[in-house]
């Protein structure tokens, strides 16, 4: 299955929120939707979920306009909240039924998920008796219980302890392996890097960068080296050959970053360094998603 958003425009009154958003995500793949606050992520998600129509543009599944009766969508909103005063099982069944499930399969699926997330003991408790992290796990069930084809997770990791975060990671990986389209929206870049093959960065209602994360990183000029040496770092810094390159900067007590005059020098410089000094590690510098994000979304359009 392939999900495609094509040239989406949306304005609220006179405020133009989205100007020509186009995205593309495939089954068995996680897609990272990035952008600063107010960039238009939530609006994009809401249009995708048919909360309101776009002013222009289409949402397509396998090239045809999406049929919301057939394609199930699960959503974990950034602003979490369910009915605090109600028993957990009651509201989970309610939401599963709203998504079109029958009562018995809904109960079965919810019990399975409660078990999977280690929440079975809270089944009949009121939601407001749970801690924030546990409430979030309950909310996650509302996004997954009806076995949707598309799972949209908005900041899924915020507020989870490392153990729960690991549990969620496993769950997300399972969903991806089961052929779901997982749409991630998060400001925690490390999680996006871990899961997402493809990303899109929104800024001011436009897609400013889109593509395979791996390729995006590869496309940066490979003219920087990270050099790590426990003993010889001072000597390298003063070495004539090193000094003749574009710039050299010390990152911490035993690493430095060396910018070359040209990517072609890479091999020679690496060879020179490994021959002359006691090198622990040497590698080509690749920008992190964080660096890429700041570069593209740093300035508000």
């Amino acid at each position, binding site marked *: 299955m392939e999900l495609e958003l094509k040239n989406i425009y949306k304005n*609220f*009154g006179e405020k133009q929120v989205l100007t020509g958003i186009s995205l593309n995500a495939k089954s068995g793949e996680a897609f990272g939707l990035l952008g600063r606050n107010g960039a238009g992520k939530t609006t994009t998600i*809401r249009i995708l*979920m048919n*909360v*309101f129509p776009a002013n222009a543009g289409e949402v397509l599944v396998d090239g045809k306009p999406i049929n919301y009766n057939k394609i199930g*969508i699960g*959503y974990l*909103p950034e*602003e*979490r*909240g*369910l*009915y*605090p005063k109600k028993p957990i099982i*009651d509201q989970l069944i*309610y*939401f599963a*039924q*709203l*998504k*079109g499930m029958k009562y018995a399969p809904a109960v079965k699926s919810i019990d399975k998920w409660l078990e999977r997330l280690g929440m079975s003991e809270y089944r009949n408790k009121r939601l407001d008796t749970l801690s924030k992290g546990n409430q979030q796990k309950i*909310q996650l069930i*509302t996004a997954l219980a009806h076995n949707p084809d598309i799972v949209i997770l908005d900041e899924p990791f915020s507020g989870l302890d490392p153990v729960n975060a690991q549990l969620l990671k496993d769950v997300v990986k399972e969903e991806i392996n089961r052929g779901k389209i997982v749409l991630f929206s998060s400001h925690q870049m490390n999680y996006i890097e871990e899961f997402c093959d493809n990303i899109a960065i929104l800024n001011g209602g436009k897609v400013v960068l889109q593509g395979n994360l791996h390729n995006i990183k590869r496309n940066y000029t490979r003219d920087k080296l990270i050099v790590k040496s426990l003993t010889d770092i001072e000597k390298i810094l003063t070495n004539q050959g090193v000094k003749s390159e574009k710039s050299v900067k010390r990152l911490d007590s035993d690493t430095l970053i060396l910018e070359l005059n040209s990517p072609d020098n890479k091999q020679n410089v690496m060879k020179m360094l490994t021959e002359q000094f006691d090198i622990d590690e040497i590698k080509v510098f690749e920008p992190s998603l964080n660096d890429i994000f700041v570069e593209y979304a740093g300035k508000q359009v």
Partner: protein
Amino acid sequence: MNQFGTILKFELKNYFKNKVFVGVTLFIVAVIAVVIFFPKIAASFESDSTDTSGESLPVMLIAADSEDEAQQIKEAFASAFEDYNIQVTAKGVEDIKAKITDEEAECGFYFESPVSYTYYVNDLSLYDENTTIADQVLQNVYRLNTMMQNGISAEKAGEILSAQINHNVENLGKNQMQNFFYTYIMIFALYMVILLYGQLVATSVATEKSSRAMELLITSAKPTSMMFGKVMAACIAGLTQLTCIFGSAFLLFNINKGDWQDNQIVNSIFNMPLNLLIYMLLFFVLGFFIYAFLFGAVGSTVSKVEDINTAVMPITMLFIVAFMVVIFSMSSGNVDNILMIVCSYIPFTSPMAMFTRIAMSTVPIYEIIISTVILVASLFGVGILSAKIYRVGVLLYGTKPKIGSIIKSI
């Protein structure tokens, strides 16, 4: 449609599982039960106590310039004031005043002449009719005396004075005296239920918004299903509550019918004609929906539950005005005045106004049909408009949006 059913069931469960809802209903039924069983309960207490009449009667004092005159008036009063122990005092005004302030006597008459007196009483009650009765008795005594002085025999004079006029009333329309009480009760029930449940609808929408459950709801269900489900659930809950209360009252009354035979008001309430009950149901449902839609739409525009009261104020005011018009027209006795006729066609006032007119006067059937058609048509209009407001409102957070900006975004 499927979603609508799910939402309706969920919302209904909220009402019927709510302890306050169940508690209040049971409490009202219990109060009605106590009231209806009261004559039985009171009777069982009375039979135990011994009869102490005569001594326990309040004292009425009579004084006049001459002892004879006082005696004569006492005799004349005896039959008119059966609830009083009438005593003649010779000591005059000061004695009357003293005894009344000491609470030895309840009231007293001092006669300056056979046709003029001063009435003394400690606290003049709202319902004190003693002077009216006394006036009548004295008037008769005076007339009788004067006739006798003018040569008419005592028997003849008595005959003249006690001449009775026979009259029959044949009511061709409605009997307002009989209808007043049950119409009043029905209108009041309508008023309470609509206002109460309207508020509940608004609160329920705003709570979903403030707890952010709306974020998920809005992506799971159509706003129209959400709103209509809520309103329908409130209507069913309200009707169930009314049925419980009135049904149990009716049942209890029939069990205790014998004890209430002499009470015309209570009897008239429970002898409400069936067709009126059907009209009541019709106008209740239509009126309920039209207001509940508005309450739901308004509830969707606020982000915090605290803001509801100010937001629903205009609707509440509109409804109270409608209620006032109806109640004042009812107590004035003229339910077919111009204001009521106009109100019985305006959708927001017609549920109460038209129902009152049907109950308390004779309304041609075509007027009822016109009023109902207008009401149903505007119900659809209000429903669609409210659903649109709701759709926009539920996604707006922060400051309460202006009406203009909502209409624009629709």
